[in-house]
């Protein structure tokens, strides 16, 4: 007799909860490219502001810290991450961290697309291969948790 026939109800509820946790995390991955796009735009603004003040060097840690709270674009990006985090914490209650965390790898595809289409960044075969291998690695990591 398998464990499933001994405790059918508990197993069904558990499986449903785990499926729901996975679904929530997949929806979460759509929030990430939007958030990353806003954070990148805002970070570019910080660099441009520094340049406008004729300051040399890169954006300081303090300026980056201030930027998160005072630059509306970066702030909006992190608000989206807040939404993401609340959903993710909820999902974590029903699943293993090492399974749910790697699922976010779907976001690499969306981020690569938004980087090329909206930010006009360069794309080449080596970068594409790198992104694909990272996604494979993250997926294998997740499978390894089972």
């Amino acid at each position, binding site marked *: 007799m398998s464990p499933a026939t001994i405790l059918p109800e508990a197993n069904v509820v558990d499986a449903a909860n785990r499926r729901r946790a996975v679904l929530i995390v997949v929806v979460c991955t759509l929030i990430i490219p939007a958030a990353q796009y806003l954070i990148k735009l805002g970070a570019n603004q910080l*660099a441009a502001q520094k340049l406008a003040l004729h300051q040399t060097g890169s954006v300081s840690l303090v300026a*980056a810290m201030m930027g*998160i709270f005072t630059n509306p674009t970066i702030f909006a990006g992190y608000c989206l991450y807040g939404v993401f985090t609340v959903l993710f914490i909820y999902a*974590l209650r029903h699943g293993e961290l090492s399974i749910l965390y790697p699922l976010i790898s779907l976001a690499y595809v969306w981020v690569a697309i938004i980087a090329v289409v909206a930010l006009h*960044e360069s794309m080449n075969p080596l970068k594409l291969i790198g992104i694909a291998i990272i996604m494979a690695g993250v997926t294998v990591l997740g499978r390894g948790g089972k």
Partner: protein
Amino acid sequence: MTTPFSSIALVLVGSLIGSLGAIFLKSGANALSRDWKSIAFNWKLAVGVATYLLSSVLFVKGMSNGELSVLFPMVSVGYICTLVWSRLFFNEQITRAKLAGVGLILVGIVFLGLGNAQ
């Protein structure tokens, strides 16, 4: 090279710090109940958020000088750290498959770096 090494280093270190945040969030989430106090007085969730903030500062600084398509995938280094923390703090097993995943992520990051240098 469109993304300087300094930006890559900032994002990698930020990801390591961020992975610690995930551990605190998981630990804090385990203690959640319907009672609002389980959120308000949950120090582990607070530490998790603070750790994410520090990681975000490094990320924004790195992002101010470089490409999103190179820097964002580098965050995957955090998964490798998460694997180590999960073993240490939650006693989750490190299987051969997980080690293979770690290897793939590292190879992927090298390819990204090569693509960036092109």
